[in-house]
């Protein structure tokens, strides 16, 4: 199963901001981390990630800097800013709303299965 393009695009910003909230990182590592977290189901391309990082930087949600760690290549690292943290909190509220609503529909308030749809797997 592959997640549809629309859904990938909609969830991209909170995912990147969320990963950067754990500490600064660079493009390739972010892509690996997303792949890992989704068990390979989220099909991100570089054409999605890098323009997104640049947009977040333009909006002031992340900052970037070129760093050379000894023994490694010069790399562009991204770090989340205060405004990025606020944006992440906001996106999280919105996603919680969506996820909770979907849970209500699919699982029902009493925890029983109400519809023929697949139940949510794992924590939302």
């Amino acid at each position, binding site marked *: 199963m592959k997640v549809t393009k629309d859904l990938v695009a909609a969830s991209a910003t909170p995912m990147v901001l969320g990963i950067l909230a754990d500490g600064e990182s*660079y*493009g*390739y*590592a972010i*892509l690996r981390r997303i792949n890992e977290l989704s068990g390979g189901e989220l099909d991100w*391309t*570089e*054409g*999605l990630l*890098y*323009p*997104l990082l*640049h*947009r977040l930087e*333009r909006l002031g949600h992340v900052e970037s800097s*070129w760093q050379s760690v000894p023994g490694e*290549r*010069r*790399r*562009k690292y991204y770090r989340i800013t205060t405004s990025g943290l606020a944006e992440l909190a906001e996106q999280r509220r919105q996603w919680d709303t969506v996820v909770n609503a979907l849970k209500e529909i699919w699982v029902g308030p009493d925890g029983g299965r109400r519809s023929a749809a697949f139940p949510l797997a794992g924590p939302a």
Partner: protein
Amino acid sequence: MTAMDGQDGLEAQFTQWRHYVQRRPELQPSDAEELEDHLRGSVDQLVAAGLRADEAFLVAVKRLGGLDDLSREFAREHSDRLWKQLVLTGGTTDPATDTRSRRDLVAMVSCAAGAAVSIKVPELFGMSLEQDAGFYAANFALFALPWLAAFLAWRRRARPALIGVLLALFALGAVAANAYPLADDSQSLVLTSIHLPIALWFVVGLAYVAGDLRSSRRRMDFIRFTGECFVYFVLIALGGGVLMAFMFGTFEAIGIEPEGFISQWLVPSGVVAAVVVAGWLVEAKQSVVENIAPVLTRLFTPLFTAVLLAFLVALGWTSAGIDVEREALILFDLLLVVVLGLLLYSISARDPLAPPGLFDKLQLALVLSALVIDVLVLGEITQRITEYGTTPNKAAALGENVILLANLAWSAWLMLGFARRRTPFAALERWQTGYLPVYAGWAWIVVLVLPPLFDYL
């Protein structure tokens, strides 16, 4: 294959990939570097998983996605980059380019300032713009063009021999403008004022091609430079006009008359400095924006063709013949020069390998009608010269008409051959670039030979 070979081969592939990426206008050097780091990370992982280096590279590039898609995504985020930026406004990430453009800027400002100051120098010797209009008219180019040539020579790191030649030619121009005893109302003075800038512009061309005179490509570059320089100069002049209008209005509103400052300082110094600035702008922007002169050419070639054909039809209809007054004579010469300019700039912008198309036929019609007009004018001038004798004006006009006639006739022949796919386009290009010295030679003759020949009339 040893591990070393694999590593070297891989580096070569990375280099190739980098060149490929850098050709994309949407991707800046820092993006390319970021993406390369990504690619390297991906390759490292694949190699660790057991792939050979070259296999890993192929897979990693494939995963990175088509460069077209990638560029499109970058373009969507950075649409400003497609509006190519002027190097001057900064923001390049390449320090070498930065230093270079800053040094260019300093050189340009020095030359422009030099030009602006030099035009005020004669005042130290008691000259003034109002009373010595003749002197300034004849010498105007000498205050601007040597500075532009100096900037270009500096940029091209001209050899001392070339600098010597440039200095000698400008000195010769100064002699031509000032050594002859020309009255303020003489025909020769007007001719010198028109032809000396042309003659000196070719000296600037010498600095532009940096002594590489025989190269047809370099000459074509100089033609492009000329057109763009003119366009920028006009734009700067328009901006200058707006500046002056505001200056005039605002200062007058507080009771200060800026008129003297504007006409004595701002206009003369501004014009000569603007020549240098325009030249610098062309140099700074040549790889950054599309050229505008060829675009104007495309726009105006059909219009000029229509006007010329209409004129010829009307001429045949009324069967009046051209009655050449002095002003009309100059007008027709200018018209032919414009036609030649249209021809030159469409040649300069054309892909030499493209097959002949409708536009080329249109241009052939333009050249042919110009040719007919040239012949008519030429007939009229010769008739007048045999009737009333010759003057410097008529001699200069005659020479120009003959020169243009020769150029247009041979151009028409080459274009006809090209339209019929008999002659390669390059022949036309070579003909036009090879003809440049003829214009330069004639301009110098008018400036140097005609005045004594006609007894400084």
